[in-house]
């Protein structure tokens, strides 16, 4: 969700380019957030309130107005303590895990960041943000909390989540404490499969005899939804009954063993080739075919199932650019 950055965020962003600001290099998990890498600055509102308090203290001193001074000092002390509390809310946190299911380019990748902390402090109102997206979470003592960031993806390949910012403005919204995290993690983004009507390549030579119908396989077999399945294949009524998305599999196209060959797509643009191959993998998997993928660098398979599918899509995702 978008929000207007406050003063501390804008300043923090600028300051982060200074050579002294930590961390300077990517770090291995778990990342321990100690006090040396936590920064605190007043928010715009905090600065406004601080100016008010300064005026009150100055006026109170000038007129020797003791109640006004007392009020100003109490408020200032509460504000000061809130800065300390914001700092303490981050201090001692650990980022213990960062992972995400691969998605196709263009989809939002749900990056899960798991945090832990020792000690008895409540740590409510933590925010994790990266690249303009934010996630809020609370961390109770002795528990583990997960923040889910919906990172946008644009292209296939490794996605580096880059610099994450863990911050909080609690308890009073007067100051923002933050710490930069540079986890050494790469997240995989599959190529976006080609859309529209795409025919699978012709059947391979020796597959007919191998493939026999398995026991229990019905003409209208239902299986779980996988990303890439066409919407019209979804079996809505059984899905509603089982509270999972189920997809109807048509047995009209009998399982075959397919050769998905890079060379067969000669003449198409590089990225289009990759997208076509990705589509083939998805379609072949959905239809229950065994398939083998021929890439310039490697031959994968033959095989079938989620792991094989992942291996193929991963290889496609990591194809060098043309």
């Amino acid at each position, binding site marked *: 969700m978008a929000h207007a950055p406050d003063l501390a965020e804008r300043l923090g962003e600028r300051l982060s380019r200074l050579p002294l600001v930590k961390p300077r290099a990517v770090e291995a998990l778990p990342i321990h957030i100690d006090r040396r890498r936590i920064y605190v600055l007043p928010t715009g509102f905090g600065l406004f309130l601080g100016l008010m308090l300064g005026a009150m203290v100055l006026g109170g001193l000038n007129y020797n107005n*003791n*109640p006004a001074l007392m009020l100003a000092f109490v408020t200032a002390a509460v504000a000061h303590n809130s800065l300390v509390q914001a700092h303490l809310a981050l201090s001692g946190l650990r980022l213990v895990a960062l992972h995400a299911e691969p998605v196709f380019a263009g989809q939002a990748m749900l990056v899960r960041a798991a945090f832990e902390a020792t000690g008895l*402090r409540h740590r409510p109102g933590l925010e994790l943000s990266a690249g303009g997206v934010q996630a809020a979470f609370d961390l109770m003592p002795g528990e583990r909390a997960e923040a889910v960031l919906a990172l946008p993806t644009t292209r296939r390949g490794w996605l580096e989540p880059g610099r994450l910012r863990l911050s909080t403005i609690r308890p009073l919204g007067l100051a923002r404490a933050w710490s930069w995290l540079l986890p050494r993690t790469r997240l995989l983004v599959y190529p976006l499969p080609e859309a529209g009507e795409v025919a699978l390549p012709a059947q391979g030579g020796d597959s007919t005899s191998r493939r026999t119908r398995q026991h229990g396989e019905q003409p209208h077999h239902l299986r779980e939804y996988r990303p890439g399945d066409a919407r019209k294949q979804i079996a809505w009524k059984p899905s509603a009954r089982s509270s999972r998305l189920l997809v109807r599999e048509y047995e009209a196209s009998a399982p075959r063993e397919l050769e998905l060959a890079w060379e067969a797509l000669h003449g198409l643009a590089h990225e289009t080739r990759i997208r076509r191959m990705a589509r083939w993998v998805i379609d072949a998997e959905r239809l229950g075919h065994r398939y083998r993928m021929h890439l310039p660098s490697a031959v994968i398979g033959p095989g079938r199932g989620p792991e094989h599918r992942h291996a193929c899509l991963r290889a496609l995702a990591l194809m060098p650019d043309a």
Partner: protein
Amino acid sequence: MPERLPKPLRNWCMAAAAACLLPLLLQVPPALALALAAIAAVGYGFDKRWPGVLRLALLLGVAGYVLVTFGFNIGRDVGTALLAALLAVKPGETHGRRDAQSLLGFSLFAPFAAFLQDQGPLVMALSLLALGLLLVALSMLAEYRPGAPAPRFETSRARSMGLAVLVALPLALAGFWLFPRLATPLWGMPENALGRGGLDERMTPDQWIDMFASDAPAARVRFPGATPARQDLYWRAQVLWDFDGRSWTRERGLAGSEPASDPVLPTPSNVIDYELSLEPTDQRYLLVLDRPLEAPEGARLLADDSVVANAPVSRLLKYTGRSVAGPRTDLTLDPATRQRATALPAGLNPQTVALGQQWSAESGGSDVAVVRRALEWIGAEFSYSLTVPPTGLHGVDEFLFDTRVGFCQHYSSAFATLMRAAGIPSRVVIGYAGGYRNPYADYWVVRRMDAHAWNEVWLEGRGWTRVDPTAAVAPVRILDTIEDRQRAEALLPEAFTPVRDLADWARRSWNELVLSFDADRQARLFRPLGIDQASAGQLGLAFAIGAGAVMLLTLWYLMRGQPASRDPLVAAWLEFAKRLRRAGLGKAPSEPPLAYGRRLSEALPGQSETLVSLSRRYAADRYAPDGLDGEARRQLIADLKAFRPARKPR
């Protein structure tokens, strides 16, 4: 479409702003306060943002009204009223988060502005309440995220904000006591457009009725040494020299020199020391016991024995004074002063003038005889009353020869006129007479109802001598106690007297402890450590050390964290896990209770049954839909608390 705060959140912000505004509204005229409260309420009730034109028109209208109310004078009270007006208009434009933040920020300034007018404990209490509400609103605002459910108010939030204030108190007190104070202000206090509660530089008979009805204190006095008799408690405020037929006034330029005369040598028997705290008057006179020997610091003693401060008294002022009982022997009177002290407006009060001249001729040159004759006449034929018919052009004639009833203003004005007609130099002194001794603490309170006017005449060989014509007619009226007066007038049932005395004592303690702390007292703070007058540098160092120590203490407290949960079962479970951690069997953060229980039972085979049962019951309460019932929960809490690992695991 600008973001809009959810209703409960907006309500809390409004409540906080209203609480901040309240002490300020108490300082503005009631009609204006009502109007502003109504505007704020309408703005709060309105669901839509008011158009800019309307807001501007409203603001200009209110500002115009304020200026008219205060007669187009610009003063501190006008500023206060304008700030209240700004805040009252603000709810009408408060809908988003930023609006709410600016509303709350400006609201914080309202109690401060109120303190410029009134530093009493009531305003302080209201301001602390306002601060608490403000913090609650701030914390809710910090928690608010668009799209997420609105933060709710729970008692735990109020508790944690109260705790935040308590935790902040040591640091605040360090700042209050040790932050170096200014010995001399950088700029002066803006004056109020309308005066408050003091004695004017002008006395017009019939004008003091309001004061006589007010039992608000004008000053509190403590006598460290001997206490003078009550009939000697005449508190001088101003000396009025000039009479225009209706009002007595003083003209600043004419009485600005130091006393020219030699005062009587003070002897230990007739010197009186006192400590006086003067309630703010917004005027420059200081109240001193008749007759002052010297001026307190920051003030001047004038030739007519009145004391004038260098700046208007706009806050509680505490000073020590020295006075001498009995008349002063200033035996010379220069011709200019004599002329001024015998001047009368031409053509007015012919009867009085004639009577004065006649008595002067009959006295054979003895001024004392004339004074005595006048007092006897007044004592025999006049009476005291606060209800007096209005008088016309020859006010003194009407009073002396027609109505013959009045109060101190009439008596002092007529007496001075009569004396001047007889050629005796005389002047009017206004101030307070008497006082009331608080039976619970050793101090006197002088109330506004003790306001009094008397005369001084210059007698050959005796100098300026106090004469109180009102005492000749009604000595009781001047020197009686408030107790007597209230019994007579039934202002307040007698049963409440102790309550009032104690309340006044509390107010005085507040004045002594809080209000009168200043640079001077701060400098003497380290006297017990052998530092007589701490310098600004020493104070700065003390502040740095004190604040640093308090901050460390606060940091330690904050780092400790709170008990993990208000839920006693969760707290007991965490305690249980903590005890086992000491035995080397800590719970991993992500470990579910049942798995933890299994691991424990393997590590401590002797207690395995108990451990499995404990973890199972805990899991049942935490994760089963209904949880445990009350009795089972209590039992589990007790069992968790009672559990001790039998021995160190292998």
